[in-house]
């Protein structure tokens, strides 16, 4: 007879990541058919761009979404990246949480998603179809074609087909996933997502065919890759207890002080010993033997120790010039400007804020401003109101810069505002990873960037408004001329045309002078005080 505990033990089993995903797809961006389609495109495109940039070549990405039936779509993404070695193809595409970027302290797009395998799994769950992959890693290398599924219980790849095919490029990857989804236009559409990607990554060329068979080409505007982001070791200020415990358990270092100085940036062996001393732990203890209590003391000691900021050159901002190029090529405006702020640090993580702005042109002036939010060059399309970027924009008084704004709302006006946060670790408010968390240091940097760009906007608006006013004045004179001429003609008996022509000549000749005249009030106007008196006396004396 089995005990109850034994019975329960038999029922308990390890829940695989894949199974977990199946039950919690909403956490990962697959909560409805519209988002599922978007997330799939996003995972594939982000992967392609990261891989291509890593190879230091200019990315060219083909995206096609075919509508197979009312709810079924085929997403095909082809890139000119380095490809994936044959042995790894099944794992990269058909095993969850398998990847080269996970846990690496480096600015990249991919760390945001759970990986392309999530999309493969989603497609498999909704259509039962395998994902189709072609990968080629070099000119004289074969192109491998795989059809892959995921074993949901084991989180292991299932190879349905494995063969060598023709692939008409030297290197690159083609991924095709069939899935249940829904296509729509608008603010949160795939079309808009790709447009924003094109803006934030002007060095990328994207050729896109949407389900309506419209071909949209986002042309490359910059022939230079952005600065390469560098891997850096984590900074002690950013480490949390769980992570520290795992690092301690996995460490190959012989002593705790050695562990601290080897695994973290900006920790010298002397500083490592100081930290151990503060935490009241022997510096030469084996990392594996550090207890939970001691780990907590260690975290506290780190916080109390002054450690210099992490190196800041690991980031890869878009750059002011590229931001402007990106905006220019996709959206017509009258005025473009961009700011890349100096890198800064929150909780030990380097980060950098960039802001781009367009005024006028095709943008409509009588609605809320348009906004593009980016994290590591990836557009954020959801949870706008929860985002630190939105909050920062709302908290600035845009009236000072020539826009109208209701209290607690985004400003109104013909403006597009792009805000980019680049970081080795972008803090999101939730697992959905669509809104930046409200760290004071990040908000401060966004605010400074926005104020700076606001001043530029205000200056431009003032200048153009002034120019417009001058133009209006000049045209007012033009309108007055026929009136004055006709009155003078009645009075003097001279011909109206003659007077009119002559007045036009005078206006043309001295236009500049006339417009420079700052209106200092009519010389014949009566001074305020006097006019009041006069008014009174008029009342008393005059009809």
């Amino acid at each position, binding site marked *: 007879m089995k005990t109850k505990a034994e019975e329960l033990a038999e029922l308990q089993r390890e829940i695989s990541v894949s199974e977990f995903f199946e039950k919690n797809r909403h956490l990962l961006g697959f909560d409805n058919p519209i988002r599922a389609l978007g997330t799939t495109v996003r995972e594939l495109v982000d992967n392609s761009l990261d891989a291509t940039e890593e190879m230091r070549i200019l990315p060219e990405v083909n995206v096609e979404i075919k509508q197979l039936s009312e709810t079924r779509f085929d997403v095909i993404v082809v890139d000119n990246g380095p490809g994936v070695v044959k042995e790894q193809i099944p794992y990269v595409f058909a095993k969850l949480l398998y990847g080269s970027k996970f846990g690496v302290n480096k600015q990249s797009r991919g760390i945001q998603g759970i990986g392309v395998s999530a999309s493969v799994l989603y497609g498999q769950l909704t259509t039962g179809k395998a994902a189709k992959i072609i990968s080629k890693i070099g000119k004289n290398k074969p192109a491998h074609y795989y059809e892959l599924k995921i074993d949901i219980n084991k989180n292991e790849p299932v190879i349905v087909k494995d063969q060598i095919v023709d692939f008409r490029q030297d290197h690159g990857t083609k991924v095709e996933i069939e899935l249940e989804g829904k296509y729509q236009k608008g603010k949160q559409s795939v079309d808009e997502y790709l447009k924003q990607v094109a803006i934030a990554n002007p060095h990328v060329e994207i050729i896109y065919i949407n389900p309506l068979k419209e071909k949209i080409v986002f042309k490359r505007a910059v022939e230079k890759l952005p600065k390469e982001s560098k891997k850096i070791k984590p900074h002690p200020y950013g480490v949390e207890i769980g992570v520290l415990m795992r690092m301690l358990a996995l460490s190959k270092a012989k002593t705790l002080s050695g562990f601290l100085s080897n695994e973290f940036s900006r920790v010298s062996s002397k500083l490592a010993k100081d930290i151990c001393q503060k935490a009241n732990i022997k510096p030469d203890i084996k990392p594996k033997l550090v207890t939970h209590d001691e780990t907590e003391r260690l975290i506290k000691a780190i916080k109390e120790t002054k450690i210099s900021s992490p190196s800041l050159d690991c980031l890869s901002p878009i750059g002011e010039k590229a931001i402007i190029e990106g905006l220019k090529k996709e959206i017509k405006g009258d005025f473009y400007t961009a700011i890349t702020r100096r890198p800064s640090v929150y909780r030990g993580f380097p980060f950098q804020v960039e802001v781009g702005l367009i005024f006028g042109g095709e943008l409509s002036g009588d609605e809320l401003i348009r906004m593009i939010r980016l994290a590591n060059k990836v557009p954020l399309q959801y949870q706008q109101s929860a985002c630190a970027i939105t909050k920062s924009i709302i908290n600035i008084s845009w009236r000072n810069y020539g826009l109208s704004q209701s209290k607690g709302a985004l400003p109104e006006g013909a403006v597009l505002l792009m805000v980019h946060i680049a970081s080795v670790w972008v803090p999101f408010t939730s697992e959905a990873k669509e809104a930046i968390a409200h760290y004071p240091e990040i908000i401060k940097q966004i605010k400074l960037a926005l104020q700076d760009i606001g001043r530029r906007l205000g200056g431009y608006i003032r200048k153009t408004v002034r120019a417009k006013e001058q133009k209006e*004045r000049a045209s*007012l*004179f033009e*309108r*007055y001329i*026929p*009136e*004055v001429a*006709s*009155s*003078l003609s*009645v*009075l*003097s*008996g*001279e011909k109206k045309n003659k*007077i009119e022509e*002559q*007045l036009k*000549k*005078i*206006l043309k*000749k*001295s236009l500049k002078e*006339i*417009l420079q*005249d700052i*209106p*200092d*009030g*009519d*010389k*014949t106007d*009566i*001074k305020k005080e*006097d*006019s009041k*008196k*006069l008014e009174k*006396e*008029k*009342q*008393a*004396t*005059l*009809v």
Partner: protein
Amino acid sequence: MAKKEKSDTKKELQEFGRDIVKQIDKGKNPEIEFALRNLSNIVFDKKTGTLKLGDKKGSRTFFNVAHAKKFLQTVEVASVIKKELLDSGKHEHLRGVFYMTKRTIPGTNVNVVDEQSESDHALEDLEVITGLSREQLHVSANKMGSMVGNVILVDSGDTIECSKLGRGGYSIPSITDELTFKKVNAKYVLYMEKASTFERLVEDKFWLKNNALLVTSQGQTTRGIRRLLQRLSEEKKLPIYVLTDFDCWGLYIYSVIRYGSIALAHASERLTIPGVKFLGITADDVLKYGLKKHLIKLNDQDLARIKQVSEYEWFKDNKDWQRQLKMMKEFNGKVEIQALTARGISFISDTYLPEKIRKKEFLD
């Protein structure tokens, strides 16, 4: 200024237009120059005893952001008057002039004038610029006056006996320049501020018993009435007596008739009457006729006005007037003409006026 004929008026306006066109022909930014009409340019001419415009000149140029519209308004008003009034010989009210000039400039949302005050102002400018009076320009204002007495006059060809028009009397037109006096039998003119006093005197046949010419304008003295009074004084040598409330507003009514007003200083010569006498009500009347119990307490506005009036250059050195104002302040009160009815409904006709005139109790 001598009265100009219609053709002169037209010529004057033509000159005005030609002068501007000449400047334009020379390629100059056209400029209109005229005497400033603000308080700083009002001069009290001791010799004539009238207010006049000083030497300060203002100018208005067309190609100037701040002046352009006013420049347009001035020439527009001038041209409307020439074309619509002078050429046809018709007269129009200030309100009509406003509507004749009010229109939207093609291609803009700007009106030549938005309010009557703008066309009125342009017209006053035109008076100063050309030296022509509003009346000469055929523009009239509200008529607000009546006249009863032994006078026969001709108005637009109609012969009018001002003694045979009942209780209402002759309604004085806005423009009185063109009236001709056929027969004037009255001995003096009594001009009064209050229409109700006028009615009282008409009912009492005061004008008949005393052979007076009664004139009222219901408060403010219009230009038409001022001109009429001046003509009666100058052409018919009639004494003019002014009867107002005992307050500084009443006093100012007299002041305007006697010395002229700030707003119309440019027209003083045609409007002021140096020989006009102030009959009452005076501070002495208040004492003599026991009106003290009918005093109305002075308010802040009254006190401020007393100070203002007493500092006017033409009252500053006038001991009689300074005394009146001083007493008004001491009473801390003012009195209406009608207060006399407390002594009897016809006290004013039977006693007050005859006595004052007989004893020549006037101020000037």
